[in-house]
């Protein structure tokens, strides 16, 4: 099934190149949408139009409870994530790689910064990839190394990335990191000082872009994302498309913010305040 779909998308891409193929043109306007619908159709044996009516069945989202978040917990979450994904700690902002990191409200929400609000001003915030519904990074990538999966995860294919860094320029959240140097050089140094690798997960190579992957490798095994496991009272992960899901229940009860909504990216990370 998946092989057929991939071949189909290749043909669709090529036919758009010569100005044929309506689905290819559709892909041009709404990247990722064709993918989502095809996946949907295959799973449920539904017809194409029907899938569009009902919308996707899965849209994964993360809720970060700022009221429950402390600096210690933030540190634990960052550490867990970076350990699980073998993210090197370069220790300087030039080469730095980060999938999730602690920052201030002022930087997380530069347009909503309110100088009279002392509660938010002093709260720690966790920033990460927003896994947007309309990801600008996937729109600009010239090789589809970054793309939106049908379940809403914006994935990064390190095997295909050419390292042009167009996605870094396009991301309005500064969520993407580039491997300016070989990450293993730093990992080896850290290992000499006692760092342990997560042997179930690869490293990256120099010259590719990386970012949070919503722990897609753990989800595949039926586990929760690493950050959720580290602090289940702060991080809530679930399916936004399901009315009865844990995340929808929380969102009904709590006030939430999303970053830079005015850009139309439709982020899937919510901040509960």
């Amino acid at each position: 099934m998946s092989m057929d779909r991939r071949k189909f998308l290749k043909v669709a891409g090529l036919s758009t190149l010569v100005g044929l193929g309506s689905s290819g043109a559709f892909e041009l306007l709404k990247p990722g949408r064709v993918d989502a619908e095809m996946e949907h159709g295959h799973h449920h044996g539904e017809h194409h139009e029907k899938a569009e009516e009902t919308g996707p069945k899965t849209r994964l989202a993360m809720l970060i409870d700022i009221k429950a978040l402390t600096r210690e917990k933030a540190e634990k979450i960052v550490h867990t994530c970076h350990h699980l994904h073998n993210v090197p700690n370069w220790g300087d902002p030039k080469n730095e790689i980060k999938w999730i990191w602690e920052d201030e409200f002022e930087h997380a929400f530069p347009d909503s910064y309110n100088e009279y609000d002392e509660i938010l001003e002093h709260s720690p915030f966790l920033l990460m990839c927003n896994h947007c519904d309309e990801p600008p990074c996937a729109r600009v990538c010239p090789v589809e190394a970054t793309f939106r999966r049908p379940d809403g995860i914006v994935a990064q294919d390190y095997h295909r990335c050419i390292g042009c860094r167009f996605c870094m320029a396009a991301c309005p959240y500064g969520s993407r990191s580039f491997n300016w140097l070989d990450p293993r050089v730093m990992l080896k140094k850290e290992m000499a000082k006692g760092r342990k690798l997560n042997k179930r997960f690869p490293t990256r190579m120099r010259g590719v872009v990386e970012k949070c992957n919503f722990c897609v490798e753990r989800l595949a095994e039926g586990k929760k994302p690493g950050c959720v496991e580290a602090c289940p009272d702060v991080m809530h992960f679930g399916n936004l498309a399901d009315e009865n899901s844990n995340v929808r229940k929380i969102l009904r009860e709590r006030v939430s913010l999303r970053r830079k909504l005015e850009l139309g990216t439709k982020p899937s990370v919510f901040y509960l305040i």
Partner: protein
Amino acid sequence: MIEKALKGSSVYWGWVIFLLCIIGAGFIAYLYQLKVGLGITGMSRDISWGVYIAQFTYFVGVAAGAVMLVIPKYLHHYTKYAKVVVFGEFIAIAAVIMCLLFIVVDIGQPMRMMNVVLHPTPHSMLFYDMIVLNGYLLINIICGYNTLLADKKGLPCPRWVKPVIYLSIPWAISIHTVTAFLYAGLPGRHFWLTAIMAPRFLASAFAAGPSLLVMLLLFLRKVTKFDAGEDALQNVARTICYAMIVNFFFMGMEFFTAFYSNIPGHKATLEYLFWGIGEYGNLVPFMRACIVIGLAGIFILLVPPIRRNPLWLAIGCACVFLATWIDKGVGLVIGGFVPNPLEVITEYHPTFPEITIATAIWAVGGLILTILYKVAVSVREEEQRI
């Protein structure tokens, strides 16, 4: 025809060897970059594009500038450009090759470059940029070679070349429009997110490309027997002047929108570039110089008695070339990253290997241009002898 590049004076060969030395140094620096990674440059997580992409952007403009000669010659039959057009096309060839090289040295995994062709992605502007740039290179090779060959034989240009020449006009517009689209379609980068980006790119291109051409033609008049003709030079200079005025006019419009609306995001980069924000302002001297030099260039090229003096003409063109280079080759790309999406300021300092590589690509462009101009001048000199 190309054999004409193999016969030259010792000065010619000295120049070629000089360029080859720079290219060699850059090549060694590139091998180092290939081995260690782009970390040897001054680029960072915040300033993720630097000298390479900035130079790329500038030279797309230089390449597109050739169309300012093609339009009068082929659409308006302005015969005074007849002997000059090929020199514009040769600038385009050299500039596009430089652009492609700047892309190659900028990407993190150059051996995977063909992925762009292997996985064609029509929703990426970079995909179109690849098509238009390579297409423009091909078009200019076809047009430049055939028109020069026809001149050499004393025959009219083959008829099938005509449509290709006409095609080169919209194509030249397209290369710089698509290059502007690389920037102008990104949400969250206020400085780039402007509909006037493509028009402004074109205006500065039509100033930058021809100004390089005029400087080179003046040089050729001095050292060879080939004379482009005073009328042709003066007319190109007028074009440059108008294009530069339009470029500055567009720049002024950016200032108006940002500062009259008073929206912080729109103002931030302009403030950083021209006044500095807090302790950060390492581009301020460049950007202010750009305005002063650009205005000086406009003044020199605008006033007829000054413009008619060959020395002043060369200085005026040099001013325009330099001002547009600072504007696009320094300020535009770096400035777009300041402040970053979290409104934090990081400054950019290019490193020595990075500058060596960029200089080497300039030298490659210089070498290609030297060889092509040598051939063209030899053909023109033969014509004049007959």
